[in-house]
């Protein structure tokens, strides 16, 4: 899971593993929590939101920033060839733009938009409780 998350993040925000400035000294006693650590934890919750992951599949779903949500899936096809798919959902003032491999761009509507709302809501509630120890009902919640 960790390796895959690193790969997804490298694709999206770049790879900082070679950066000396980001390297924590080996004798550092209390490793500093980073945003990437939190994203990794959130993504673990996100990947489990949609029920069982099919055998041979790996999934990531997380909120990259306030206006970007990422869905990434990897699997092997019937010939054993590794496949992967990354979908980015971008929040725009007039709707949610879905960006898929290609790239292809499309504002989502109808059932797909409803499903994304439900997924982001579950994600928000679960992440708020389990990672940030906040009650999503009492912490500032988005107006509906």
């Amino acid at each position, binding site marked *: 899971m960790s390796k895959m998350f690193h790969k997804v993040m490298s694709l999206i925000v770049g790879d900082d593993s070679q950066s000396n400035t980001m390297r924590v000294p080996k004798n550092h006693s209390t490793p500093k929590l*980073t945003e990437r650590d939190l994203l990794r934890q959130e993504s673990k919750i996100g990947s489990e939101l949609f029920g069982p992951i099919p055998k041979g599949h790996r999934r990531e779903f997380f909120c990259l920033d306030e206006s970007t949500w990422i869905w990434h899936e990897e699997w092997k096809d019937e010939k054993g060839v590794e496949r992967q798919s990354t979908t980015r959902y971008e*929040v725009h003032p007039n709707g949610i733009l879905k960006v898929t491999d290609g790239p292809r761009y499309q504002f989502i509507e109808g059932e797909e938009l409803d499903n994304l709302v439900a997924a982001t809501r579950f994600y928000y509630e679960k992440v708020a409780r389990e990672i940030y120890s906040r009650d999503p009902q009492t912490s500032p919640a988005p107006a509906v």
Partner: protein
Amino acid sequence: LFLGESNMSEAQRFIDETRFNDIPNDKDGYRIDLHAADEGLTPEWIIAATRDARVAAEETARRERLEHKPTPTEVKTHMIAGFGGHLRIMRDDMLAGAA
């Protein structure tokens, strides 16, 4: 009125810097352009009228925003934006606390 070229350039520059829809109509209701100079409209009038039109357009847009009833898509988009925004705040709070 005689209008020097330099003054008209100034008016044209002002208009160019505004949005197309801000360009006002002249006294007869025609959208003004530099030919308005031939009709006796001064650069000062054009600049003032353009400013007035821009203020009016901004006020109209502000009122329309207030009166606008969001569509279901906009409501759902707003919800997703809200979840993302609050996650950002919670993340930042935790990182600040851990620093």
